[in-house]
């Protein structure tokens, strides 16, 4: 039995025979000068609860001190607390592998959670996942095993090549209402939907999940159209209009699919049940014999049926409805999830560093995600691209800088480095999914994953390239060069 302790900044990882048995974390969080809406939740509930990562760790201790300072107030930003948790866990896993002299892949694989549901020591109960599947997919896509050849080739060109990975987990669709209420939240965390089938068969869906670029108008409409085999043009998604929409909770925490669309799916269940009752009555069949496909409502095994629009018309004329049934075809749902969802995945980043200048180029970036059921692959891929750009921005470019007097130095984009298109690589985005058991569509969520999983992958790659761990984000050319000087002051000069 070999017990070791790996210390990395404010983290301590304890392993026995390379099995993680404990993690201790001390965290100081700068909340800025004023308490803002969500600021104290970010470094506490959204952060400490994910310190188990994808790993089976029986003991976790985390002490968070939230500090008021004279800097600008902070609040939730894509990922909010989960990028920080992922960064700690994945940086110390990489550090541990390097210090123990074992493969970072094997150390992770050996410690992966493989049995579900899995209750971590930090509240969360992971419902499902297959972490090794994403790891393998990302390794294959990145030609992980032939990396050394590429490193040697880069060396001949005077470049330092490095490879880093990150096996992230996050918690989306924050829930259930009663649980967050017990932690002091002032709101419920459900979502609502109303599905209105018009007399001509077109459908209006009112959702509380607002769409401000996430493409809900497309994805939500797909779910409805697919359910009944209707043309997508017949579906209208209404959001953000407080004159029309019933109460709603909004779009945040990658919840619109897992929570917002679940509410729609549950409302569709009620619509479907009523449609079947009406059709069974009109067609003189048993409800259980009614099937809905390709916009037709049919009696199974016969040529009897009616068009979807005819059912809509029947519902509103009320001429021939089952006894006691109210006319109309409009159903709603307030959906309160029973658990978070847990998207996960493996990101692999490969970089080349110019030792003369500290400039880092990302040569390839592979993202293998488990988002559960995917409704619209193109929109999901776009979300991953945007998340990765933000995560890479955090890892290599963006920085809020104050001087010792508290004066903001990075006050404009002349000094605050936003990532630009030519700073970013072509991404390889792929999926290996397990179906989320806690919601009707099996969706986990995809909005923040890229921003959560990518920073440690980038920094693990750069620290691998430069051969030391003394690198803070952002890995600007100046910071990378300064880290290189710690190895050998002559290296960069030559």
């Amino acid at each position, binding site marked *: 039995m070999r017990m070791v302790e790996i210390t990395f900044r404010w983290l301590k990882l304890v392993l026995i025979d390379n099995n993680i048995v404990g993690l201790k974390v001390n965290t100081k969080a700068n909340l800025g000068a004023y308490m803002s809406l969500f600021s104290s939740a970010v470094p506490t509930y959204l952060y400490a609860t994910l310190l188990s990562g994808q790993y089976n760790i029986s003991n976790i201790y985390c002490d968070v001190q939230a500090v008021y300072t004279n800097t600008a107030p902070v609040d939730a930003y894509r990922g909010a607390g989960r990028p920080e948790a992922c960064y700690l866990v994945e940086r110390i896993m990489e550090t541990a592998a390097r210090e123990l002299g074992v493969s970072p892949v094997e150390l992770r694989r050996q410690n992966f959670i493989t049995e579900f549901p899995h209750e971590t020591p930090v509240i969360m109960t992971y419902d499902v996942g297959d972490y090794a599947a994403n790891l393998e997919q990302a390794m294959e896509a990145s030609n992980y095993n032939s990396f050394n050849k590429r490193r040697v080739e880069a060396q001949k060109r005077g470049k330092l090549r490095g490879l880093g990975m990150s096996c992230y987990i996050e918690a989306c669709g924050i829930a259930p209402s009663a649980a967050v209420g017990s932690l002091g939240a002032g709101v419920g965390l459900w979502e609502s939907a109303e599905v209105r089938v018009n007399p001509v068969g077109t459908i209006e869906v009112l959702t509380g999940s607002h769409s401000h670029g996430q493409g809900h108008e497309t994805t939500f409409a797909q779910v409805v159209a697919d359910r009944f085999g209707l043309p997508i043009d017949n579906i209208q998604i209404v959001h953000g209009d407080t004159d029309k929409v019933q109460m709603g909770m909004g779009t945040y925490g990658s919840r619109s699919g897992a929570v917002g669309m679940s509410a729609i799916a549950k409302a569709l269940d009620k619509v479907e049940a009523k449609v079947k009752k009406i059709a069974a009555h009109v067609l003189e069949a048993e409800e259980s014999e009614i099937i809905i496909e390709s916009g037709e409502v049919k009696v199974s095994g016969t040529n009897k049926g009616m068009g979807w629009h005819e059912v809509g018309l029947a519902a509103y004329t009320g001429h021939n409805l089952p006894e006691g049934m109210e006319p109309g075809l409009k159903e709603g749902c307030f959906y309160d999830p029973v658990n978070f969802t847990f998207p996960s995945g493996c990101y692999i980043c490969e970089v080349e560093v110019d030792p003369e200048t500290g400039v880092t180029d990302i040569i390839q970036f592979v993202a293998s995600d488990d988002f559960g059921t995917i409704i619209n692959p193109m929109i999901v891929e776009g979300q991953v691209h945007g998340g990765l750009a933000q995560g890479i921005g955090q890892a290599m470019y963006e920085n809020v800088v104050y001087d010792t007097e508290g004066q903001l130095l990075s006050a404009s984009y002349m000094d605050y480095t936003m990532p630009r298109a030519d700073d970013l690589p072509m991404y390889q985005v792929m999926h290996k999914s397990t179906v989320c058991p806690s919601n009707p569509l099996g969706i986990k969520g995809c909005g923040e994953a890229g921003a959560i999983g990518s920073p440690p992958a980038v920094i693990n790659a750069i620290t691998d390239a430069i051969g030391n761990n003394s690198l803070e984000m952002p890995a600007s050319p*100046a910071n990378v*060069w300064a880290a290189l000087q710690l190895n050998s002051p002559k290296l960069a000069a030559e």
Partner: protein
Amino acid sequence: MYDLQYYKAKNVDDAAAKINQAKDGKYIAGGQTLIPTMKARLASPSDLIDISQIDSMTGIKVTGSEIIINASTTHDEVANSLEVQRVIPVLSDLAGNIGDPAVRARGTIGGSVANNDPAADYPAICLGLDATIITNLREINANDFFESFFETSLKDDELIVAIKLNVPIKAAYKKFPNPASRYAMVGVFIGILENGARVSITGAGNTGVFRSLDMEKALEKDFSVAAISNIKVPLSEIMFDLHGSAEYRAHLIGVMAKRAVMSC
């Protein structure tokens, strides 16, 4: 926008006359520095005298061993001038890498030189090609023109009308862009002229653009990377900010100088 008088000058004399009459007048050509400065309320001139439409102030002329660029010529015009590309290709490349397409479409060589931003590219090539700054009053050698951060030897209301640059035997400019602004964090221009070597450095100096006389001497004896590899610019002359320490910038001067020599 606060109240101000705008006047489109007909010719150089007209521009000079108008600015003399103004309480606190400023010339404007491309406005790529002045307009943002006014927007930030760091400048509030009473009058803007527009010199961008004066015919005699635009255009490029090559005369044997010299190239004369009139002051209101845009970066884009310099970058895309076939004459410039033929005679001093490095000048075309330099102009083509200033800012972005919108900046290059409006910004002018005279404006950039007059502003003497410590991270601008044109001051480096002016100093490196032993340029003459021609104003409405006199001719000033680049050596005497660039004084310090945003400081030049221009008198109040003196107007640059043209820049005269010497055609080098060979030359190269290597720029390390600031990751945020993409101005030069360090830009090194190396040129071999009829009368010797020139090494001018922008982006890094405590007092703006400067020459490395040590590197010039070394390159005149032996134009090679080895000749300059041990020459260090004193740290006390190098600026630092949130993007890089003086040590880092001093180091980058060496790297960019080496790369400039290699591509000469």
